[in-house]
């Protein structure tokens, strides 16, 4: 197959035709644009959150004109000879910071009581690209609470409308009952006339949700994720299409949560059924494989935030505490 040459932030890579800029960057492994809505396992996802925007300074060898606007790297396919600027472009870093600002103006910032805190992509994104102070002074958007069933808790105020859960239910379950209602900033993820979501794979919406909008009711308020220990395990699941490969999250000897396994980009490797996720919470239900490795840029891995990748040209204001003299010494953070 013909390989296309693409340069991202000065690093060259050859990828097959049809690869997106984001996938190419992931292959390089450095300067990867953040993706809040794109999910490689979900067809049609991406393009919406705009955090992965990059600048294409040369369209291709054939047509070297730059693209006039920033493009969504998750949905733009590479061309031969394409030159992409991501973190080396100050405009892109500024645009990304503003997208993060937009995502946060109506977010409740209730991380201290949010179950997702610690493994939340929006939190990571906010630390990497967010500003220290908000310029938004108005009342934040709130929604009426809707009960969508016994397993999944919907917190619409935290939602960033990535549409991942809609795609998940559309593509891996056979009856999607939820979608996006209303439009503009009153758009919300909801089930029509407050129906509950009940099907074998509905629990996967919890894993694909980048924020704390969809959380596990059986794990709610039980613990902070960074106090729990992930362990890889599997069982011989009889549900059709379920891989049975999971991560068990232990607190002491107790399994307090079961999730699908996630790769280094925070994406589910294989989807699991609701039986595995919600009903098998005993160690005896599982064949233990061993401790799971957690990406070290997450709070679970290190107990504190630190950028694991090279710092961008425009240094982001990383942490709320980093500038404070008493926090200069990193060792104080680690327990």
């Amino acid at each position, binding site marked *: 197959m013909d390989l296309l040459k693409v340069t991202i932030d000065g690093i060259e890579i050859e990828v097959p035709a049809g690869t997106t800029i984001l996938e190419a960057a992931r292959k390089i492994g450095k300067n990867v644009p953040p993706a809040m809505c794109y999910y490689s396992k979900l067809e049609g996802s991406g*393009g919406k959150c*705009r955090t992965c925007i990059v600048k294409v300074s040369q369209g291709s060898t054939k047509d070297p004109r730059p693209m006039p606007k*920033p493009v*969504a790297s998750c949905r733009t396919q590479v061309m031969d000879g394409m030159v992409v600027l991501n973190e080396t472009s100050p405009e892109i870093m500024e645009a990304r910071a503003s997208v993060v600002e*937009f995502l946060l103006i109506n977010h409740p910032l209730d991380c201290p009581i949010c179950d997702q805190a610690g493994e939340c992509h929006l939190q990571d994104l906010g630390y990497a690209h967010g500003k220290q102070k908000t310029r938004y002074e*108005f009342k934040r958007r709130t929604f009426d609470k809707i009960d969508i069933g016994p397993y999944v808790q919907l917190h619409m105020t935290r939602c960033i409308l990535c549409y991942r859960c809609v795609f998940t239910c559309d593509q891996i379950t056979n009856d999607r009952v939820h979608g996006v209602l209303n*439009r*503009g900033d009153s758009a919300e993820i909801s089930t029509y006339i407050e129906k509950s979501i009940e099907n074998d794979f509905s629990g996967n919406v919890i894993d694909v949700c980048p924020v704390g909008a969809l959380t596990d009711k059986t794990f709610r308020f039980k613990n902070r994720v960074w106090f729990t220990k992930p362990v890889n395990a599997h069982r011989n699941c009889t549900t059709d299409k379920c891989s049975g490969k999971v991560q068990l999250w232990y607190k002491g000897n107790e399994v307090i949560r079961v999730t699908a396994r996630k790769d280094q980009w925070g994406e589910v490797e294989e989807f699991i059924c609701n039986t595995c996720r919600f009903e098998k919470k005993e160690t005896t239900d599982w064949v233990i494989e061993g401790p799971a490795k957690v990406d070290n840029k997450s709070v679970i891995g290190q107990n504190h935030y630190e950028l694991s990748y090279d710092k961008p040209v425009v240094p982001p204001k990383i942490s709320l505490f980093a500038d404070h003299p008493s926090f200069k010494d990193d060792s104080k953070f680690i327990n």
Partner: protein
Amino acid sequence: MGIKILTKDIDVPGIQNFQVYRSYGGYNSVEKALRMTPDEVVEEVKKSGLRGRGGAGFPTGMKWSFIDKKSGKPRHLVCNADESEPGTFKDRYLMSKNPHILIEGMITSSFALGANLSYIYVRGELMYVVNILQRAIDEAYANGFLGKNILGSGYDLELHVTCGAGAYICGEETALIESLEGKRGNPRIKPPFPAISGVWSNPTVVNNVESIAAVPYIVNNGGEEYAKIGIGKSTGTKLISASGHINKPGVYEIEMGVTVEEFIYSEEYCGGIWKGRKLKAVVAGGSSVPILPANLILKLANGEPRLMSYESLSDGGFATGTMLGSGGFIVFDETASIVHNLWNFERFYHHESCGQCSPCREGTGWVEKILHKFLDGHATMEDIDLVADVAKKIEGNTICPLGDAAAWPVASAIKHFRPEFEWYVTNPEEACKPGAYYTGDKLVLA
């Protein structure tokens, strides 16, 4: 009197009826086109220099030539009659008064594109237009201009008229296609462009009503003849929806190249500013284009008179120019409040944002809220820069042009009318009084 192409017969009694329309030379272009090859028709449209009348001004002939013919998939023509830009009401006028000119244009254009199934997507609020168009389509079917084997040529065309549910965003071509397919009207992420994958994933061309209605004239008289009308690359005539503080609001068909001054002040068109007041500002192409103060709309930066054409109106870029857009010409007299008007526009964009991508979903609401502070008298000087900055951050970072449309008015209003914004900050009590308006140095109560 300038030349009239689209509105020539619009006031003929009964022109809505097929027989009357036919007796005025209607549907001749269909007969002529069917004797030509589709490529010859496309060539004529290319020669005419016709540019899309929906706002972007992209050459129609070139757009047609992009349609994917190699894949062998069925092709479609969609007429974008979802005219919802504030200040624009030309398509409604044309369709409700002379529906057959659009049907005729649809048949000729569909033939040129090789489309056998075409659609007219009408704005949801214009239900009565749907009925008028449907009646015209029925008549065309009855007279053999639609359906199987049109006029014995072997060319088949099914034409459907359908209507939206009243969302501004469905005027964006890919959102329109989604809506047409019965889905939620969210713009698609491009590429692929509709010319490759549009309605039902087939190659599709989406054209404005006015563009399609100009095709019969081009086919009848030849592209070169059409190109003689107008000025430079702005060929032909344009329907302008004139509204605001003028003596004679309405839809005018102008030959491109009329000076803006003539358009505003002559009796043939707007008839001057009402009540003998002075011109303050003009939004020349529908609410989304930059607003220009009187001196800049009448004269170019180099002192030459500004003309009603794509090039002349955009002369000077966004620093001292604007755009022809969809031709929604809104005139403000000296008593108008730019701040209040801007808030009104932004309220509209906030309301109409589809909510798909973050900058537009969150940013438009933020902009509206900040602007409302000015009207409440709570704004600070920082808010002026903040609102400009937020608008700038929306611009260019969104999936579809709605974000840009929301951002441009903000940037231009603040650039050209900053003292008025400052007046709202420094003298809130005066500025927020009903009927008060800003004149530069002193407060005046209307």
